[in-house]
C-alpha cells in the first residue's frame, strides 16, 4: 500500500521501518512531514479542518506516486495524508521515498510534495478566533510544481 488518506496520526519511524524492511539494497530514505502551523498574533489559528474528495484523492495521490516512480529509480514510496479536524503542531502529511542513492530520494520527495500541493483534492479551513476561513492556494506552490514540468 503506497497511499493512505486517514483521520489518524502516523508514526514516521514505523512507516520508515516498514518501507525498508524487505530490501537491503536501499541506501537512502527521505521523509517529509507537514505540520499545522499556529501562526502568530492576529493570524493565530486555533484549529483547522481538512476536507477531501474521497475516491479522487486516492487516485490523484497514486498518479503522483506513479509519475515519481517513472522519473526516479525508487525502491519504495509511501504517502499518508490526514483529513478531518487538526490543531497546531499536529502532523498533516507524510511522504517517504527510498532509493539506492540520496539525491534521487531527495528529489522524488520534493517532487511528490510539490505535486501533492497542487494536484491532490484537499482543502483546508482554518479557525481564527471565532472565524472560519478557507485557505487560499499559493502562487509559490504553483511555481514549485512548475519546476518539474517537462
Amino acid at each position: 500500500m503506497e497511499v493512505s488518506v486517514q483521520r489518524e496520526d502516523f508514526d514516521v519511524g514505523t512507516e520508515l521501518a516498514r518501507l525498508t524492511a524487505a530490501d537491503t539494497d536501499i541506501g537512502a530514505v527521505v521523509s517529509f512531514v507537514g505540520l499545522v502551523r499556529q501562526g502568530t498574533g492576529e493570524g493565530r489559528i486555533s484549529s483547522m479542518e481538512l476536507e477531501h474528495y474521497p475516491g479522487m484523492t486516492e487516485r490523484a495521490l497514486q498518479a503522483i506516486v506513479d509519475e515519481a516512480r517513472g522519473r526516479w529509480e525508487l525502491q519504495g514510496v509511501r504517502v499518508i495524508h490526514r483529513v478531518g479536524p487538526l490543531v497546531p503542531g499536529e502532523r498533516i502529511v507524510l511522504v517517504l521515498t527510498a532509493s539506492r542513492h540520496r539525491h534521487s530520494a531527495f528529489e522524488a520527495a520534493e517532487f511528490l510534495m510539490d505535486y501533492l500541493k497542487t494536484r491532490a483534492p484537499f482543502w483546508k479551513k482554518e479557525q481564527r478566533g471565532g472565524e472560519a476561513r478557507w485557505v487560499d492556494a499559493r502562487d509559490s506552490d504553483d511555481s514549485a510544481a512548475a519546476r518539474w514540468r517537462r
Partner: protein
Amino acid sequence: MQVLYFAWLRERVGAAAEQIDAGSARNARELVAQLTARDPRYAAAFADLAAIRVAVDQEMADLDTPIAGAREIAFFPPVTGG
C-alpha cells in the same frame, strides 16, 4: 449525472452532491451556465469562474472538457492540501 461540490463551493451551493440532468450541456462551462440560470445560489457560487477547478470522473479537467457520458462532475476551489 452526479455533481459534487467541495469547500466554499459546497457551502455556497448548499449541497455536497446532487443528481442533475445535464441536458444539452456539452462541457462543464455549459453545465455551470445551466445551473446559474436555475438558482441564485449557483450564480453566487460560480461568480468567479477563474477560481473554479473541475474534475470529470475523478480526473482533473477544465471547464471545456467534454462531459458526454461522464458519471461524476466535481467543482471545487484550487486545492490547498499538504
